[in-house]
């Protein structure tokens, strides 16, 4: 039982926020003008070990950076900032002021959308730090396992990106949005629709495949037929990415949300590392799915056709492969894989409107490392990038870990632009 209690302490605790619905919404509706000054954001900083944390500076700004107010948390760890009106606000806490042993779980800031008359609770995740100071975990093993899980998620999304590049030559900057749509679709089905997460994830994959097919049939196939240049296509994919990303923000909002299922799981101790059951499950699922993809590419007829088209499109076409059909299947597969990756990422890091875009650059890093256009290269490269990003926190602060991944990308381009598994002819 003492082990159980220790595990309990290992849990990241955070918590917060007074989603105070105490302000009567009826009043707000009756007098929207007068209630304009009643919006506020608030929260509580505390962890089980440290208790409430007093005297941490909390800064509230608008998204474009205009400061609203700066306050310090009181003896109960609470803070409240009145706002000039509804809208989006960014809440940032001063990491330096946190007591010894308490660290941020993720970013030091969070952007929330405040509706008229609402007191919006803001949750900034804190961790006890007990994971690092005791409990028998070895930090680099823990980071390696976390990195492996993260890398597998990147790989799932990146396989499609790489195959699409290989078969059509398109550098698809809108691929991150396929990841996001999976996560958001599953969230709506799970939270609003009340469907358990596993069937919701399957539906999200079908939606992802559908969106992929729609991409190909609605945009890229007609454009190829018109003979649109690859650079123009690339800029079009950026336009599509902007369009979808901000559409998601309008529909989903600027906040981050968790699924209903599998919340607040405790980490299970595996000796040198700990892992929650959901993280273990997503690691296993990702591994299984990627193995299936590899078997499919290696053994099945359509898989061989995909590799053939990626290798040399004209030769493939002249040996009787229906190139357009293969490309359509690649898009559907890429969409479904990206959507599943999004669901699993949403499970561990919560669902956000720009989660896919933030992942996109790491996907590019993985794909470039492995070799642009090759399926297996994307797999290997993404896993390396995931592990590298997580393990880099051994030497660099947590909030700049993505920078390490992006730096790795630039170093790869200098040292070996064709990647680990790529061939030199592709880059010239």
């Amino acid at each position, binding site marked *: 039982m003492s082990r159980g209690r220790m595990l309990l302490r290992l849990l990241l605790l955070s918590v917060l926020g007074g989603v105070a619905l105490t302000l009567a919404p009826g009043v707000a509706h009756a007098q929207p003008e007068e209630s304009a000054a009643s919006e506020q954001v608030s929260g509580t900083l505390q962890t089980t070990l440290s208790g409430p944390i007093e005297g941490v500076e909390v800064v509230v*700004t608008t998204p*474009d950076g205009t400061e609203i107010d700066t306050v310090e948390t009181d003896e109960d760890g609470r803070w409240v900032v009145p706002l000039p009106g509804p809208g989006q606000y960014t809440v940032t806490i001063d*990491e330096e002021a946190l007591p010894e042993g308490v660290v941020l779980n993720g970013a030091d800031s969070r952007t929330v959308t405040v509706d008229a008359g609402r007191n919006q609770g803001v949750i900034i995740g804190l961790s006890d730090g007990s994971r690092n100071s005791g409990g028998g975990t070895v930090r680099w093993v823990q980071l390696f396992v976390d990195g492996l899980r993260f890398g597998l998620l990147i790989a799932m999304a990146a396989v499609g990106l790489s195959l699409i590049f290989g078969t059509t030559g398109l550098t698809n900057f809108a691929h991150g949005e396929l990841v996001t749509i999976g996560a958001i679709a599953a969230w709506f089905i799970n939270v609003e629709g009340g469907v358990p997460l596993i069937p919701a994830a399957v539906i999200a994959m079908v939606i992802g495949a559908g969106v992929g097919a729609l991409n190909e049939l609605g945009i890229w196939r007609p454009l190829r037929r018109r003979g649109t240049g690859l650079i123009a296509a*690339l800029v079009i994919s950026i*336009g599509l990415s902007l*369009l979808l990303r901000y559409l998601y923000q309008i529909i989903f909002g600027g906040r981050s949300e968790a699924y209903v299922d599998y919340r607040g799981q405790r980490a299970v101790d595996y000796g040198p590392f700990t892992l929650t059951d959901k993280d273990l499950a997503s690691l296993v699922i990702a591994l299984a799915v990627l193995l299936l993809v590899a078997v499919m590419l290696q053994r099945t007829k359509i898989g061989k056709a995909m590799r053939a088209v990626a290798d040399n499109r004209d030769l493939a076409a002249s040996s009787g492969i229906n190139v357009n059909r293969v490309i359509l299947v690649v898009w559907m597969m890429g969409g479904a894989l990206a959507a599943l990756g999004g669901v699993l990422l949403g499970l561990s890091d919560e669902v956000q409107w720009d989660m896919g875009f933030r992942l996109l650059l790491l996907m*590019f890093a993985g794909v470039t490392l492995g070799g642009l256009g090759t399926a297996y290269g994307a797999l290997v490269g993404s896993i390396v990038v995931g592990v590298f990003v997580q393990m880099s926190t051994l030497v660099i*602060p947590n909030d700049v870990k993505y920078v390490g991944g992006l730096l790795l990308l630039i170093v790869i381009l200098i040292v070996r632009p064709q990647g680990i598994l790529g061939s030199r002819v592709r*880059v*010239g």
Partner: protein
Amino acid sequence: MAELIDALAVALKAGLGFQAIFLALLAIGINLQFGYTGLLNFGQIAFAMLGGYGIAISVSQWGLNFWVGVAVGILAAVVLALLLGLPTLRLRADYLAIATIAAAEGLRLLFRSVSATPVTNATRGLAGFNNEFVALAPWDTARRYSLLGTRWSGAELWVTAVGWVLVALACLLIWLLVRSPWGRVVKSIREDEDAVRALGKNVYVYKMQALVLGGILGALGGMIYALGTGSAIPDQYQNANTFLAYAALILGGAARVLGPVVGAMLMYFIIQFADTGLRTLITNGVIPEGLLSATDVAQIRFVLIGLGLILLLVFRPQGIFGDRREVMLDAR
């Protein structure tokens, strides 16, 4: 009707104000790189950030002279261009695109990180570095002036005036450059790199020059923006701004000297008009709150930019002034 005229006046001010100048300078830089040389720089905003922060850090943090700050900003942009160009300019176009967008995102994350607080003041940014610049104005900067039915503060007017002079000089420079032998080589690189190489030109060096020069123009844009807002905050330099500049460039017409300038003015005019117009329609109840709320309007602009970018490239890749044959680029 009065609201419509108000919205037009606000939009007109935006189309002439420092934001439009910022966008125009970014787009002029991209025009040199993308329009004339065929380079895909997707990290133009990073150059702007270095420009803005060059002044902000030098003046606010290090207590240096304003002009030293300008030099620091330009130097930082040159170094970034060299760092990005050295490995990627020998590779196919999309490698430069990926490297530059990664660098822009990475730099922003770095500037806003807690560990960078002693230099950049992290997410809270820097302020109070433009006094020396504002003091240079030949008129009283504390007064407010009325121009074409819009109100401007003296300082705003000064930034705007300096900015448009910069834009004019940049256009003149580009005009002279593209008419010179250098411009002909650069345009040939866009059309057929191998042919230029066969003529004995060092393609790599020409590409690098275009990248550096475009980066400096981007840095100047960032400086105007930082001086206009009076603050430098990492999140002002989001990646989407680079694509805003691309959209402006393509709208005006790539590979045309005045294309990016007209595009940027028009772009800001349209965005601001749509912004104000939508807000008015929502507060008046013409658009029901359930469909679109006032907080969504800020996002609508990016949706429109994305849609505009797609439609322009599909149906009119040459924009308003461009020549269709000049913008049919293909990846190499």
